[in-house]
């Protein structure tokens, strides 16, 4: 099943963002996929139907765009494939 994830440059940013986003949409905390980073990290998973909502909210959220990235995750032949999605621009 395809889904979206937001990854973060710091665990503090991940925890803070979860508290913010879960007031508006359903996000699930998960370990960052090995396909994205070998390092230990916290990601937030969301349904792809919420992708635009997430892009918009992350653009409006008080977090440096360098501190996070949004990915679309697909399962291809039993393996995850991650494709980065641009965050919405701040002006949008």
């Amino acid at each position, binding site marked *: 099943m395809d889904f979206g994830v937001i990854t973060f440059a710091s665990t503090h940013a991940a925890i803070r963002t979860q508290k913010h986003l879960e007031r508006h949409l359903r996000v699930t*905390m998960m370990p960052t996929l090995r396909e994205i980073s070998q390092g230990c990290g916290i990601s937030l998973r969301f349904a792809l139907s919420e992708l635009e909502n997430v892009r918009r909210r992350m653009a409006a959220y008080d977090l440096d765009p360098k501190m996070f990235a949004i990915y679309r995750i697909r399962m291809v032949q039993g393996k995850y494939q991650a494709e980065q999605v641009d965050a919405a621009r701040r002006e949008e």
Partner: protein
Amino acid sequence: METNLDARGKACPMPVIMAKKEMDAGNLQFSITVDNDIAVQNLRRLAESQGYQGSVRETGGVYTMDLHKKGGSEPLLSQPLQDQPAKTAGQSHPPRSWAVFLGKDTIGDGDQTLGESLARMFFYTLAQSEDLPRWIIFMNRGVKLPALDVQVAEHLETLQEKGCRIMVCGTCLNFYGLQEALRIGMISNMYDITVCLQEADKVITL
């Protein structure tokens, strides 16, 4: 004369406790009658862990398990057990049994928020895994996870659907005033939990 224990109508874990008592008393050959399949499974695990061989007869929902110590001095004219592997394969849990024990609502000590986040991610990862524990046991502050953490409760639901038994200490829920808040799992007691810990091939404490 061979002992026959009647454990019909006895709630888990009484049949196991009765059989264990008999084994501890050095009885190498006895039988026990129970009235549900779960008790049979529990007894099978007990027998295996204690070096006993067991065969089961069923008549109209009543199961009688004949047990004898493997290599004991009075080998029983044992019935063939060829139906056993098929039964094991049909169960929803892997034959190797292990347990996860949480005595707090975090993984590790340190920052509370980080510990809660690690617990959420642990259960997310576990729920996606193929090798699942047979039991997940929550005690003391650990009961807050199945009671109060929505995300952990969702993962536990997935794990329960896959055959894990979620056991939550009733005394602890009562202490924290969380009986009504419990979202998932079976309210359990020290007897059940101790038997699970004794039966598990390994216990991972977080």
